[in-house]
């Protein structure tokens, strides 16, 4: 499950993401954050954390460095 999710995200990063303008306000980017947090916390918790990160990644947030 973990591996499947991560490979999906990696595929998105490689193949789909380059076609949107760079938009993430954070370092690491939301997709990298998702990979790292799934590796760190497991599929469910990591995935939820990644979603929370995407929600935080909006124009009202300050951005900057935010690691899982």
């Amino acid at each position, binding site marked *: 499950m973990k591996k499947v999710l991560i490979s999906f995200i990696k*595929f998105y990063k*490689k*193949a*789909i993401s*380059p*076609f*949107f*303008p*760079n*938009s*993430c*306000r*954070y*370092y*690491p*980017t*939301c997709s990298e954050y998702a990979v790292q947090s799934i590796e760190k916390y497991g599929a469910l918790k990591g995935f939820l954390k990644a979603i929370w990160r*995407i*929600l*935080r*990644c*909006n*124009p009202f*947030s*300050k*951005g*900057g*460095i935010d690691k899982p």
Partner: protein
Amino acid sequence: MNNDQDMQKRTMLFFVAVSILMIGFAMFSSYFFPNKEQKQENQQEIVETKSAQTAQADNNSSNTTTVEKTTQTEKKTVTQSKYVSTGNFDLLLNQQRISADDLKDTVVINVPYGKIQFSKIGARVISIYLKKYNVDVIGEYSKANRIFPAEIITTNPELTKLINFSKYDFKQDGKKLVFKLEKNGISVIKTFVLNDTGELTLNIQTKGLENLGIALIDGISFGEEGSYGHSGAIIKTDKDLIKIDSDIEKEEIIRGKILWSGVENKYFMQIFANHKPLNTVHVVPVAENKTVTFVEIPPNIDGFFFGGAKLYSLLGEITEKYQKEWGVNLALRETIDFGIFGILGKPLFIILHFIYNYVHNWGLAIIILTILLRLVLFPLNHKSLKAMKKMADLAPEIEKIRKQYAKDPQKMQAEIMKLYSEAGANPMSGCLPIVAQIPIFIALYNVLMVSVELKNAPFILWIHDLSDKDPYYILPILMGLSMIAQQWITPSSDKNQKMIMYVMAGVFTFLFMNFPAGLVLYWLTNNILGIIQSFIINKQMGRYKAKK
């Protein structure tokens, strides 16, 4: 240089991914939702090749005969249906049906929205023609096989024949149509009342059928409207809405408290609702992708038959009317399927409908809705574009960092992000606005695809149907151009990004060519608004700089 190559690789990968997805989807949909239109095209092609081949008389005659055979077998499935045994209820789908009624002894009623036709043989509804859509809700299959809504099926085939293949006495009293049959000690009285809302009040009283099971046909498949949306039987119970696809292999029986039942496609439906819930509905496959729905009834019933378009406001009106009269919530609006993002799609549609009530043009309503959506998202977009401009001022410092950490791209990115948060100007809009746009777009796509309101709804000039593709491809091309223009005007330092956007503009133009014109209109308006917005910001920023 290295970066360029990497980008090219990614570009390739992207197109491979997209094409695999698209081909995969096409295969998936043709496998799971076989398209009727395609088959018809095939048939036409066969006929054409046949005539072409007979013209070249002596050329491979064996081929011609096989072609002829295929056309014959296909014709058979169209005109003659399989004999289906339904256990207790026999639909009697055989030659007798066709010879019993030549569809000439009819009653034609002109109504504001079109024309309704009844046959005096069996007192059945044989045509509901809707002027606005140029569509007959009673389909070709019904007419070819003489099986119609409002037909009574009994568990005794001889009686079924008697009831449906005999001529009824007809009397009209204003909007009330009374059909009467008295024969062999059996009496059937069917009363239809024409209502302003388009549904037909249906009252049936029978005598002499008390010892039999009787059922009422309330839906016969009448064709699909494109591959999108559900077409097949539809049953509403007090608990949920049950949809049964038209390609089932065996009869399906649904028991429960049935409020109404019938058949639907994306835009239209035929249903019968009784004032008291009924118990059992049968859905019987009768031919390829064709089902007949019938509901078991007591000897006397009082309800309505509706055959018409699934207009949101109309269905609401009918639901309300019977909520008052019967005290039952029929929830007819549930038949409009706004898709997986229905939670978003439904409010979008309601707003769209609300705007339409003022402007009376669906195209204009779409434009206004787009403007409203932009206004809601504007603070977000505005801020990000402003920040983008600010970033141009930060460019020299960023260049410094780039050079400093050229060998460590991760460290470089981190440093750049640090700089942004220190300067209080992050050029990135964030991932949320981009992610949020996807469900909105999909929801709107669903809305524009399923709304019968948009069918045959003209916009301006050359667009006569917003639910169909633009016949001259003017809108998709304009949309592609607007994407390129947007790229020109948006401040961006990345050359690769620009190149990719040009390619994207081309891809989107082709992708959107066959999309409904209404959807392309949305996308085009959205782009134009984006261009205007960045133009204004560019100007304001210019002023700000000059003052400084």
